[in-house]
């Protein structure tokens, strides 16, 4: 409300809306604590694109300043960060909420202060609650788990699957959806086993799995567990095909697991092949050049969110929070992970999904939807 009052005051004084030369975008995620790796590399992807954007003079002269904040993947910290962005009238867009849990507690705050956000949490429930100021530029878990189930049933002729998840929002959610799709398609889920999110030793679980002899194993977890599991699976002589969600779409998946251990594993992700367009091929090299290490599992999404922001800035009527929200919901952005548009709930209209197979030290596209 304060913001609107301030703006109407400016309008009254100057007659026409004043466009600032620099806007601020709130960027929040876990940059310390156990999930620091995900948050930092995701943020780096975003910053990489924004720095490029600013270096090129911004969009119509408007440059972007990033207010990066650490939410430690903790809902309580998340609310503080959200309120900080809300209180800062300069912040007109949020790139936030790496974790669905953090999103659940911050979305009401962003809604209250009419600050539009690109939310990262992929739990389907987030967009079902009627929030008007959020979009989710990543596929929700429904999309992420459909393709692998189809592939397993049709291409691999799998009859039985075994699900392992890390009992976290993402891992459990996406693996449940895989299970439903797999069962609906006529397959049989032999068992669902849970591991702790901090586990690194899966030998005991794997020994049990071995005795059940499933055709495929769906692993709902994140890095580095995906790589550790793949490695130990091979070492323990489990023959099933391993299927993992998008966290595995990173060279680290292959290098940490050991190339030989991870051959044939499938990864479902929203991103097209890295060599699909020159821009994406660029991304990986640019990232490495700038940060001195390979892109993290979610860096590409950060990069794409930068591209969405660019598109929004190009199309927005003004630089108020409301304008940005309208533009964000109406945007059609051509990004590294495809053309993205949002429906009225804020979900992607078309959530592209690509399925890759590890082949040598590369990911080979084996299916798309």
């Amino acid at each position, binding site marked *: 409300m304060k913001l609107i009052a301030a703006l109407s005051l400016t309008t009254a004084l100057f007659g026409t809306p004043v466009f600032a030369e620099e806007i601020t975008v709130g960027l929040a995620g876990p*940059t310390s604590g156990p999930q620091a790796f995900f948050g930092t590399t995701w943020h780096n992807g975003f910053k990489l694109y924004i720095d490029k954007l600013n270096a090129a003079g911004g969009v119509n002269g408007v440059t972007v300043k990033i207010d990066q904040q650490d939410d430690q993947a903790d*809902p309580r910290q998340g609310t*503080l960060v959200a309120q900080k962005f809300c209180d800062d009238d300069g912040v007109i867009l949020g790139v936030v909420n790496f974790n669905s*849990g953090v999103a*659940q*507690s911050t979305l009401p705050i962003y809604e209250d202060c009419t600050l539009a956000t690109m939310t990262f949490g992929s739990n389907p429930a987030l967009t079902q609650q009627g929030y008007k100021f959020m979009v989710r530029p990543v596929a929700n878990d429904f999309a992420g788990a459909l393709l692998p189930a189809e592939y397993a049933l049709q291409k691999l002729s799998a009859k039985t699957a075994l699900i392992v998840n890390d*009992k976290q*929002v993402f891992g*459990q959610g996406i693996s449940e959806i895989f299970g439903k799709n797999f069962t609906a398609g006529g397959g049989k889920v032999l068992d669902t086993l849970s591991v702790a999110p901090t586990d690194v030793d899966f030998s005991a679980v794997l020994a049990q799995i071995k005795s059940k002899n499933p055709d495929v194993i769906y692993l709902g977890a994140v890095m580095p567990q995906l790589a550790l599991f793949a490695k130990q699976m091979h070492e323990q002589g489990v023959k099933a095909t391993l299927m993992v969600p998008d966290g595995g779409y990173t060279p680290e998946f292959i290098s940490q697991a050991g190339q030989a251990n991870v051959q044939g594993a499938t990864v479902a992700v929203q991103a097209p092949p890295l060599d699909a367009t020159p821009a994406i091929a660029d991304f990986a090299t640019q990232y490495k050049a700038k940060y001195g290490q390979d892109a993290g599992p979610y860096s590409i999404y950060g990069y794409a969110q930068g591209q969405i922001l660019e598109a929004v800035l190009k199309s927005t009527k003004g630089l108020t929070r409301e304008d940005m929200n309208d533009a964000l919901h109406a945007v059609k952005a051509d990004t590294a992970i495809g053309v993205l548009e949002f429906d009225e709930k804020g979900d992607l209209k078309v959530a592209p999904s690509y399925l890759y197979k590890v082949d040598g030290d590369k990911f080979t596209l084996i299916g798309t939807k």
Partner: protein
Amino acid sequence: MSSVDTSVQMRMRGGRLLSLLILATAVALIIVTPFLPNYYVRVANGLLIYILLGIGLNIVIGYAGLLDLGFVAFYAVGAYTYALLASPQFDLHLPFLLIVVIAAAVGAITGILLGLPVLKMRGDYLAIVTLGFGEIIRIVINNLDWLTGGPKGIARLDKASIAGIELARPTEIYWLLIVVVFAVAIFVWRMEKSILGKAWAAIREDQDAARGIGINTTNAKLAAFATSATIGSIAGVIFAASQRFVSPDSFALQESVLIVLMIVIGGIGNILGIVIGAAILILLPEVLREFAEWRILFLGLLMIVLIIVRPAGIVPRTFGPEKLIRGLFGK
């Protein structure tokens, strides 16, 4: 003798000024905070919740001398009690105050259930077992999906309201917390001054000698566990009502450790110490936000330095609230 008297008088005068200064600052801060931007109010709310938790845990650690590393379990019990009874989860929407009463009862029962098996243990064994209980509760919450929503947690909790007044915005929660913190602090302070509080102190100092003067240490310890758990549970209810979302992430082991640290750094066994400890461990990271991970490093090093410089905490055990008030009137 006369020189002693003057020095005492001088100390008193200095003490009076100090008391006045501390109390005036506190009152000013309490009144000014709700008029600051919401971010500051939310930070203050977080601080107040931790102070509440600190007051609760201090009963067991500071008064009774039992090292409890699983305190977060009660916090979780309270938060989930609210979440289950005031959310779409089971479509139950009980009034806030009723839930506070229920949560207090559930907290007390949990406290006694936890207390019973660990009563005979002491020191480090007690620490690891309470830690284990904290973890057990968290793991169970994370896995009882049908009840607690599992890792997804429970969202869209009801707004709290008392007598038709809605308590949802940061400033409203702030005033709720101010009232509760003061009420609980006064209650606990009176408890400490009561015969039960003295018995806790005796158990802390020498458990066997305490038995020797006729103290039923089992009951006294259970009373400490139950009271502390009740306060933790009430803090959980307010946390859930202000966050309007609960998930197991908020109740990790680190939270228990954080509260213990707060108590020890601030001054063990002392309500004022808890406030100082909470201010250091909760506010400092917020103030230093822009330094990202460096602030955590700084916090770690600061912890070591503070503990080495003042092993029993910043505020001495004897410098309680009554000293402040007495100091104010020069008595």
